[in-house]
């Protein structure tokens, strides 16, 4: 996996554009949305590997609501929350609801990109494991078919052999 498709969500347009630039610098593809509803609209159209969203947003949907909606739509999309008033309790709530990370504003972009790199590595490991399992399944299926044929044949030969042995014993 080379780079990630990331959606950045923030109602502050300046922050949105500098966050987008910073993430693009790390080689990822970035889309942006100014609120939760627009974000969900984009997510329903394209799959994203990750969503980086502000916790506090105006409108009906805050970062936690968006997190829940994103996870309900696709559990494989990782969500990073950004907040100006990080507390341990709110971070714990976010992580419990399935957030991948929780960053304090102003966001250190180097740190954000390191978190994204971890997500990229994890996704690439998951893909490797999936590929290996797929290869193993195919091998196992093919071998399994052959072994079952042999099992039936051996059982048949064994029963014919014991029938013959019985007849021989009777003749004696």
């Amino acid at each position, binding site marked *: 996996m080379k780079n990630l498709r990331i959606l950045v969500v923030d109602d502050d347009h300046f922050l949105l554009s500098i966050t987008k630039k910073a993430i693009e610098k790390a080689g990822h593809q970035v889309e942006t949305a100014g609120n939760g509803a627009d974000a969900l609209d984009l997510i329903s159209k394209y799959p994203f590997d990750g969503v980086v969203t502000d916790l506090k947003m105006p409108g009906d949907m805050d970062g936690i609501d968006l997190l829940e909606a994103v996870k309900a739509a696709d559990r494989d999309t990782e969500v990073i929350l950004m907040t100006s008033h990080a507390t341990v309790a709110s971070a714990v709530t976010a992580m*419990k609801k399935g957030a991948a990370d929780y960053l304090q504003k102003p966001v250190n972009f180097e740190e954000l990109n390191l978190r994204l790199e971890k997500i990229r590595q994890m996704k690439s490991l*998951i893909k490797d494991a999936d590929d290996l399992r797929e290869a193993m399944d195919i091998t*196992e*299926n093919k*071998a*399994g078919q052959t072994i079952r044929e*042999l*099992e039936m044949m*051996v059982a048949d030969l*064994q029963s014919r052999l014991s029938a013959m042995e019985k007849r021989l014993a009777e003749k004696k």
Partner: protein
Amino acid sequence: MIKITQDEFKVFAEYVRQISGLCLDQRKAYLIETRLKNLMREQDCDSYMALYRKARADTGKSLENKIIEAIVTHETLFFRDAWPFDLLHEKLLPDIVAMREAESPLPIRIWSAGCATGQEIYSIAMMLRETLSDLRKYAITLLGTDISATAIAQAESGTYHRFETDRGLSSIRLRRFFVPMGNNWQIRDDLRAMTTFKTHHLMQPLRGSGVFDIVFCRNVAIYFDAEGQKRLFDNLATVMARGGRLITGSTESVVNVCSRFKPERHQRAFFYQLR
């Protein structure tokens, strides 16, 4: 990481075979090194012989258990291979129900031997829920056993990380049978109540759990040598009801090592019947 020498490997492999029946492949010596790394550090051992001697001297067997825990492979997933569950649904359960029609409640006894973290027995529980209209008419026994106490503890809790539920569970089954807990999902209490788990070593006969109509023992025999496999299948046969059915992994052979089972085919599926 401390390298294992060929001589150490031989001693260690023989010891593991004696305590667990598991056969270690010389070509996979590196697996021992990675899997025992933490235990070596915890036990402050600078060689595998030191660990071996320490384990031998430990009469409480706690180190022996830790070694087995570290070495055993826990690979499992929900509804693994799909066909055994179709077989259960289309053939094995209807056969039991037809045979015991007159009995009330009607007993159905299934054992998942070598159940690791419990995905197989819970898959069976989900399937029973989906297949049988009124569970109160049945006396259902679902037993999961494994050599690993940590695996059994997870199975008992019925809690799985989403990486585990992602493997084999449809989102319909996930939402129907599990409760979300952040990145984890827990199997619903009513399904958990259908199951029992206990630690058990398959080289020993299973005692005190009654007899079973169906035994799932899949991808367990592959870790044993021929002698261990024979003991395994004999031990299973001992606690199976007359005409009981055994389902093994698709690459495992039974007829060459144990004459108590007869292979049977049902469409794509394959099982063994106790003679």
